[in-house]
């Protein structure tokens, strides 16, 4: 029993070193230009760290170097959702989207405002709203017991309302079925089948919003162009 405890302690102490080792090996492959092998290594790493934005970022880098800018954009977007304040992730995402004619910051929106809006990840924002709610409850509780609600209770209520609105807006974006064109080009058809004429084609890296699906087809909207149509599932990568 004592031995097992000691082994467990040693493993716990060295697990961060083991975790960094797999990243080091993948980085070595990437540096040698073996992007495909590096990608495989990072994807294995993702099994142990499914919520690590840096692993998504590195996967995006591998895809970018392999010329798959659509898949690169999808992975940068996943990393951005988890760590929106990271400047490297934002840079690479903006660069990749720009290659596909897309923008991270919508036209007309100040960059500062965009950065403020994405200052916290969705999970962080949810935590903030929870904490504000608990604070408001506490202050109300004290006020009720003391038969006098304090000024701070009002401030907490206003803060909670604003943050709840912010969370709601971010939640709407999170629930948006965003996807990116992953094949070199994709045809947008008027119906879910190749017998329907292609009304437009989109290059890889374009963002689309999935509205519906039927068999092997998605009904999508291209927000940047305002186009609507059907696209083969194989040609897009859901974010």
């Amino acid at each position: 029993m004592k031995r097992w405890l000691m082994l467990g302690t040693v493993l716990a102490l060295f697990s961060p070193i083991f975790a960094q080792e797999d990243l080091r090996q993948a980085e070595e492959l990437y540096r040698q230009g073996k992007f495909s092998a590096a990608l495989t290594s990072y994807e294995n790493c993702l099994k142990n760290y499914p919520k690590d934005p840096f692993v998504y970022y590195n996967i995006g880098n591998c895809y970018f170097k392999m010329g798959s800018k659509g898949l690169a954009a999808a992975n940068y977007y996943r990393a951005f959702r988890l760590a929106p304040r990271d400047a490297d992730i934002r840079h690479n995402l903006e660069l990749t989207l720009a290659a596909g004619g897309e923008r991270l910051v919508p036209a007309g929106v100040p960059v500062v405002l965009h950065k403020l809006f994405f200052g916290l990840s969705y999970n962080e924002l949810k935590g903030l709203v929870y904490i504000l709610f608990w604070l408001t409850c506490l202050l109300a509780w004290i006020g009720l017991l003391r038969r006098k609600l304090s000024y701070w209770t009002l401030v907490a209520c206003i803060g909670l309302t604003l943050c709840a609105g912010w969370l709601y807006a971010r939640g709407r974006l999170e629930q948006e079925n965003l996807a990116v064109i992953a094949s070199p080009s994709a045809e947008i058809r008027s119906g879910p089948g190749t017998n329907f004429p292609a009304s437009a084609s989109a290059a890889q890296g374009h963002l689309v919003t999935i509205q519906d699906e039927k068999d092997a087809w998605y009904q999508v909207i291209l927000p940047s162009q305002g186009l609507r149509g059907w696209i083969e599932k194989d040609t897009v990568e859901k974010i």
Partner: protein
Amino acid sequence: MHRKLFLLIAFLGLATAAVAQVVLSASTDKTALSLDDELTLSVEVTGISGNVTMPQLPSLPAFNVYSREVEQSTINGRTTLLFRYTMVPRFVGNAEIGPITFSYNNQTYRTDPITVRVYRGNAAQTTAQTAAAHAPLQADTQPDPHLPPLEAALSKQAQAKAGEPFFLVAAVSNRTPYVNEAVSLSVRFYYSRSFYDAPYQKPTVSNLFIEDEGSVEGKQTIGDMVYHYQEQRYQLTAAEPGKATIGPAAVRYKTGSSPFAAFDRLFGGAAVSPDRTVLSAPITLSVRELPAGKPASFYGAVGSGYTIKAQASSDRVEAGQAVNLTVTVKGPGNLKATQNLTFPALDGFKIYPAAPESGRIASSARSYKTFKAVLVPAASGIYTIPSFAWSYFNPDTHAYKTLQTDPLTVTVVAATKTESGFNFSNAQVSSNGVQALTNDILYLKMIHAPAENFLVKAGRLYLVNIAAIVLLVITFLFAVLGRKKLVRQKIWVHTKAQLKKASSAQEIADATCTYLAQRLDIHTGSLPLKDILATLNRHGIAPATSKAFAVLWRQLEAQRFAPAGFNANNHAELAAYASRVLKQIEEELK
């Protein structure tokens, strides 16, 4: 003395004889080769002096001879001439190089014929052996049983017309080619007599591209007649599947009828025969469509023995300097008709493709196509230009085959001068001399992301929200509903304390009235006892308690209106009594 003289004469005589002996030999550098290979035929003549003529090569229908070299060396007055002929085979099968003749001092020397085996593609035996043929031999006029198909077809047609002094035959190497597969067409004009002015008219073709491949001359014995012939060679490629036709070729010739025919012809005399025309038979090809399953890197080439090679003009350049990338494809058929190679985007390079070049390899049935692109690296580093894929269809195996170039490595060092001569779209020069060359993604993250912060962790505690809501509701309910009870308890406690402290009837009365007013909302200022009791009844106070209250009330009134009859003991008793009555009321109100 005589003996010495005799020996000297004998030595000189033997030496002269040795010098005068001429030896002719022929050899090839290999006995087996593929269609892609070259064959070197070496003819060596030794023991000659003075002016000599060239050796006479036999007819070589199975080869294209495109290079000749002569090497001369003289040792001890003996001259050796070495003639080297570089040849490319035309057909698969056994190819024979007939006897080579050499005339010197009115004597003719001949070599043995040499047979080499020609294989398709790269299937040639790698252990090609050097063959040599020495010693003179008589010419062999027997037909070669291993003739290639085209030659066999021409010979068969010629045999059928044996005896005619002039005739024209045409044959193709393949009657059922695939689209864009190279087909050889030979048109051969046989003549056994001299002729004057024989203009040739090439055949017309439909659904075919035709390219001239030059002409050869030769001699052939058919039956018991010796014919000379002139052969015109073409290469055909079909553009579309279906029928393709080759019309008849024609030769219009005139023959002379007298030894002075040339003069007679010059002056328009009748010694020259009228125009006669010989035609070849038309040929129809059935062009097959290429099978499905074309690879993405298939650009239309059909044949076998293709090669591809990629080459960079330099493997070390400065950033901003150009590297010329050349990809060359060689192989049979007309590569000009194939589509152009698509250069993929290369990370770190700007690519400027140039127009491809194509043409025929000299004296060969093979052609080439060269694709060029100028690569301009944007920044320093070690770059790998990946391999390029190029596919062709092999009609022998009926399958597509893909060739790959070797990847190339280019080392790019930092530019030593800022003027690159190229306009980078993303380049920006700042005032401090730093030039942005290109926009690339940032490097990898070398560590895992930091652990989740407290906000993320708090976001998971949704059960706490429920607890907070429950607590708030409880507090609210407690605050709203428990308030009256608290107030009531407070009134009774306060009244009890006042009664305990009361030292006069007035204080007892005030405490009682305050209790009634606050607890039961009975304002006793001008209210008769009867109304007070009625109100008590409405609040559910028992009649006995009401009666006790009436006693208390009357005693208080009596004390108020006749205080003289009461002492301190009476006050204490009254206060105690009031306390008991009000306590009873309080309990009953609960």
